[in-house]
């Protein structure tokens, strides 16, 4: 008997989608069903995380063979600490964005499949976090993308259509590359199951596999994952798409779907290719595994993201554009520790790098959606997001401003907020790297991180002084803030403070997730991709 709970988050979203489609005629019921579905999803994720990872007698990981087909022939769903951590992020953002959507998006727009598509987005994210199969990962990426295409073009104006079209073309190319990569891996290893690929790559001689093409194929996949994550040089779709999509969906895109890209990098490189060694070394790279190739590339991408995003954010003239560039920079802060982990030899530094990336991802997934939702609240109160038209919001809407202030502080990294621990761990990993291997690379990483931190202070201060302090503009004077929207913001703000104050269990969870990402043998044993031969 398999533990049915593993598939529960996915089944909850699927059922919600069907229910929402059936309830189209009754918009009021549909809206409550959407919120109810979000709540049920959060409960399901909580139950999975507790019973599989967090409970004292939890097994730590569980595999689920869909349709009863044993691995590697069927599709396997795997929950380990890493998946559970990411699912928890998705649940927190998904629930708050679902509630906020009902309050923010106007009623007529909510009727045109808005809620259905929102849950499709959530379904794609959930599937990507759960799946243990490379082709299935591609499928869930597509599910996620199809929903987000519609959202980017949702309002149907010329600029939305242009942004939607750009986003569509770019992601179709990205998907084609991922498909090529997955197809190539199948040709090389003869299997698509992640655990099976991992097993065969680690012992290429025993299975008659030539691991050399894996580096190039993994690089193709890295392009697509980087595109999803919005890392430089694939960041250019981010501002347009974030500006066009409805703001609660933007919160979802920034908070969760970007993290899917980072999750996929960690899962594929550390778990699937973690044990592979490629015969001849690659030009200009020390070491001879896909990981040693990943390290310089991801570090360069992360550093470039921090700088490009930070500099871009300083000069924008609306709040959401500033935040969109800021999220390019912030995802750089997630990518850099992953790059450091890839560069480090197996051991505590590698674990620290991954844990830092996960904590930072959690921080960004709480703070950035809060900021985007606060932006949405400002827009529905004042009708504008242009910094020039705002001013003096602090006195007009104190609770809303306090939430925005808190999230900004977390972004800057002030203790005891979650953002402080995220930044602290990232700097810790970089400093340790510099201490163990002094050299120009470590110094560049540290300097870039510092520059990124300074830029963060600059652009958050700029938004704050321009829109919350100063003279009240006419738009702000007439503003009517919806207290229900503020309540959602306050809940997220409390989460940021709460995670910061009770950080220890969160850090243990992140550490367990990092261990799960690195525990390649454990993952293979769990899935047991032997086709039932010697189970």
């Amino acid at each position, binding site marked *: *008997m398999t533990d049915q709970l593993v598939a529960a988050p996915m089944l909850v979203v699927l059922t919600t989608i069907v229910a929402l489609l059936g309830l189209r005629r009754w918009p009021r019921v549909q809206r409550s069903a959407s919120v109810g579905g979000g709540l049920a999803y959060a409960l399901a994720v909580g139950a999975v995380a507790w019973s599989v990872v967090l409970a004292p007698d939890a097994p730590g990981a569980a595999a689920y063979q*869909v349709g009863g087909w044993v691995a590697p022939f069927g599709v396997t769903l795997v929950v380990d600490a890493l998946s559970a951590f990411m699912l928890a992020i998705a649940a927190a953002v998904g629930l708050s964005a679902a509630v906020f959507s009902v309050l923010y998006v106007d009623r007529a727009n909510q009727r045109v499949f808005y809620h259905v598509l929102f849950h499709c987005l959530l379904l794609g994210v959930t599937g990507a976090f759960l799946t243990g199969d490379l082709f299935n990962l591609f499928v869930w990426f597509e599910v996620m993308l199809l929903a987000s295409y519609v959202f980017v073009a949702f309002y149907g104006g010329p600029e939305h259509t242009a942004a939607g079209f750009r986003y569509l073309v770019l992601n179709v190319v990205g998907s084609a590359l991922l498909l090529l990569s997955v197809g190539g891996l199948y040709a090389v290893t003869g299997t698509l199951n992640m655990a099976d690929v991992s097993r065969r790559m680690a012992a290429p001689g025993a299975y008659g596999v030539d691991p050399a093409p894996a580096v190039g194929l993994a690089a193709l996949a890295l392009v697509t994952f980087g595109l999803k994550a919005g890392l430089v040089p694939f960041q250019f779709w981010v501002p347009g798409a974030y500006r066009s999509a409805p703001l609660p969906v933007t919160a979802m895109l920034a908070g969760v779907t970007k993290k899917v890209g980072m999750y996929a990098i960690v899962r594929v490189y550390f778990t699937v290719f973690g044990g592979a060694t490629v015969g001849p070394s690659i030009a200009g790279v020390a070491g001879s595994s896909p990981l040693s190739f990943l390290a310089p590339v991801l570090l360069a991408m992360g550093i470039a993201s921090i700088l490009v995003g930070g500099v871009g954010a300083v000069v924008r003239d609306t709040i959401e554009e500033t935040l969109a560039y800021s999220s390019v920079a912030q995802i750089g802060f997630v990518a850099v520790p992953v790059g450091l982990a890839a560069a480090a030899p197996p051991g505590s530094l590698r674990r620290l790098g991954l844990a830092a990336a996960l904590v930072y991802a959690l921080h960004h997934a709480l703070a950035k959606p809060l900021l985007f939702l606060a932006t949405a609240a400002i827009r529905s109160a004042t009708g504008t997001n242009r910094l020039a038209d705002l001013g003096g919001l602090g006195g007009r809407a104190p609770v809303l401003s306090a939430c925005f202030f808190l999230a900004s502080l977390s972004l800057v990294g002030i203790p005891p907020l979650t953002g402080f621990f995220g930044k602290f761990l990232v700097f810790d990993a970089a400093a340790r790297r510099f201490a163990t291997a002094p050299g120009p690379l470590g110094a560049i990483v540290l300097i870039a991180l510092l520059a990124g931190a300074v830029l963060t202070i600059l652009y958050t201060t700029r938004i704050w002084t321009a829109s919350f302090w100063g003279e009240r503009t006419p738009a702000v004077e007439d503003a009517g803030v919806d207290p229900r929207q503020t309540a959602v913001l306050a809940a997220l703000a409390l989460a940021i403070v709460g995670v910061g104050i009770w950080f220890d269990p969160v850090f243990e969870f992140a550490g367990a997730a990092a261990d799960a990402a690195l525990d390649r043998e454990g993952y293979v044993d769990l899935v047991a991709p032997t086709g039932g031969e010697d189970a």
Partner: protein
Amino acid sequence: MKTTARIMVPIILVLAISLLLQGHNLPGGGFIAGVLTTVAFALVYVAYGLDYLDAGVLGRDVEPGRGIFEHRSVTAFRRTFILGLAIAVASGLGALAFDEPFLSQTFVIVESIPIYHEIEVASALAFDLGVYCVVVGVLLTILSVVGAE
């Protein structure tokens, strides 16, 4: 054109149904059967026009002024799609009631049936039927909405 449609449409529909029914063991299945069914409808649309299905076959009145989304056949197509999705998900969830993983399938061979002698009833047919309804519903909605532009 109309003569071709008159001859081909029944053949295509029968072929589609046979593909749907054999799908779990032989080439075929819900998706390809749904596409073929859509092709039959497309042929009717091309030969007779968009309103023929409502006015000519079902004998309903078509109000000329209304948008394509209020067209009764389009509403029906969308309902087919939702029904299909519900069937497919429910057939997957059904396995949970028997303590099997999501989407698990089984089959029963029914013996001593006149003419056929024995028929294999597979639970996968329910899922296939769901896929069939989804494909027919979605493709026909797209076809009639885009066709009306």
